[in-house]
């Protein structure tokens, strides 16, 4: 049919693509870091005996997991501004993504916590470790090691989902693509390039997580066996 693909016309804007990809990666990295922290805390919170904390964590997780990320981002971005709190789009994007991925992380981490055999915790209690010490030394790392593949997938998905941040003026990869394609009307070329970039980014993230795994799990590095 009548479509002539003209990649050079779009590729000449490679600095913009690169900038967008970099911002996407940056958003994903920051949200991953904070989200992992928030999610872990929420998972711990759901396991406490304090009904108020456990309930609050549950409401957080359920609300976020059952509503679209786009709506969450709008509500944070415009809601805060309406209250007179003005943050940059980047800050809001990181915050919204963190809140979002935190909820998923919480569920995954909870599964990890519950997969720790009861006997491990009893052994630690028998050694007079405190609750915090037990979480820190006995539960956390093995739990993460068990759910590491799921966590990795979740954070790659977060990177892909960060595309909705274009809605609030964050200039990440999808935003760049939208700009270029409406400036040049070369949608095909743009989307194909963007697809390739996203696949590369996801491979980069997976490689990063693999490397991090080597550092985090020395036992696995040495023995190569699953926990």
């Amino acid at each position, binding site marked *: *049919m009548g*479509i002539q693909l003209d990649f050079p016309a779009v590729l000449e804007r490679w600095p913009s693509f690169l900038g967008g990809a970099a911002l996407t990666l940056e958003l994903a990295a920051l949200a991953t870091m904070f989200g992992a922290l928030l999610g872990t805390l929420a998972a711990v919170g759901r396991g406490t005996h304090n009904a108020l904390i456990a309930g609050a964590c549950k409401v957080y997780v*359920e*609300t976020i*997991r*059952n*509503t*679209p*990320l*786009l*709506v969450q981002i*709008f*509500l944070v971005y*415009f*809601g805060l501004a*309406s209250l007179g709190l003005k943050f940059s789009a980047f800050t809001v994007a990181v915050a919204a993504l963190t809140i*979002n*991925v935190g909820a*998923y992380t919480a*569920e*995954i981490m909870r*599964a*990890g916590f*519950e*997969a720790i055999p009861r006997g491990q915790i009893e052994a630690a209690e028998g050694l007079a470790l405190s609750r915090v010490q037990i979480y820190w030394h006995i539960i956390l790392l093995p739990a993460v090691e*068990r*759910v590491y*593949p*799921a966590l990795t*997938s*979740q954070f*790659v*998905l*977060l990177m*892909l*989902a960060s*595309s909705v941040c274009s809605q609030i003026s964050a200039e990440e990869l*999808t935003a760049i693509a939208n700009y270029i394609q409406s400036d040049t009307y070369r*949608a*095909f070329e743009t*989307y*194909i390039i*963007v*697809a390739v970039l*996203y*696949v590369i*980014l*996801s*491979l980069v993230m997976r490689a990063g997580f693999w490397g991090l795994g080597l550092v985090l799990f020395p036992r696995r590095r040495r023995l190569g066996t699953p926990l």
Partner: protein
Amino acid sequence: MGGHLNINHLIFLGHGALWTVGLSLIALIGGGTVGFAIALARISPLKSVRLASAAYVQLVQGTPLLVILFLGYFGLAAIGLQVSPLVAASASLTLYVAAYLGEIWRGSIQSVPKPQWEAAEGLALSRTQRMLKVILPQAIRIATPPTVGFMVQIIKNTSLASVVGFVELMRSGQIVNNSLFEPFVIYAIIAVVYFAMCYPLSLFSQRLERRMGRGRVNLAPA
């Protein structure tokens, strides 16, 4: 711009919600069928089949659904295949969902303990009999919670089908908002409708998980 939210707007949103439900069903039925094939291909005795299916999974899981939908609709047309939006959306969602469900189910099948496979083998059951009578019934129990969990994500992700012209819930909300300009009211309504569709499923998946004991990990995308 202007005017107030009226019954027509709500009906319009309702239509959008119906499309969301419809697209979700298509995605799950199509994706479920192909995903099952992917799961089997991933554990195939043939190395080439294993590698090909693994590459497929990697590729699809690394690409945003929006791009898949776009290329599925306009890309096919560009090479001379005129497909309706419904066909394009169904095909794209199917490919996308299949990659994820295939992985979830492969994990479930492989997590049936090895001794169970051996016990079935030791009873002289054929490969198909082992799969159907021993492995799958156990794998289904393991797979149900993460599958239901993933369905929740699909319901939300069908919103991207607006790129091929579907006016589903999210898009209908945007259209209403563009003519009314009541963003907070409208997005709140949308959030509530999505919640009403997703939460029962979430709840159901948690029930299942609790009932059959824990230990499975949820591979749920955002």
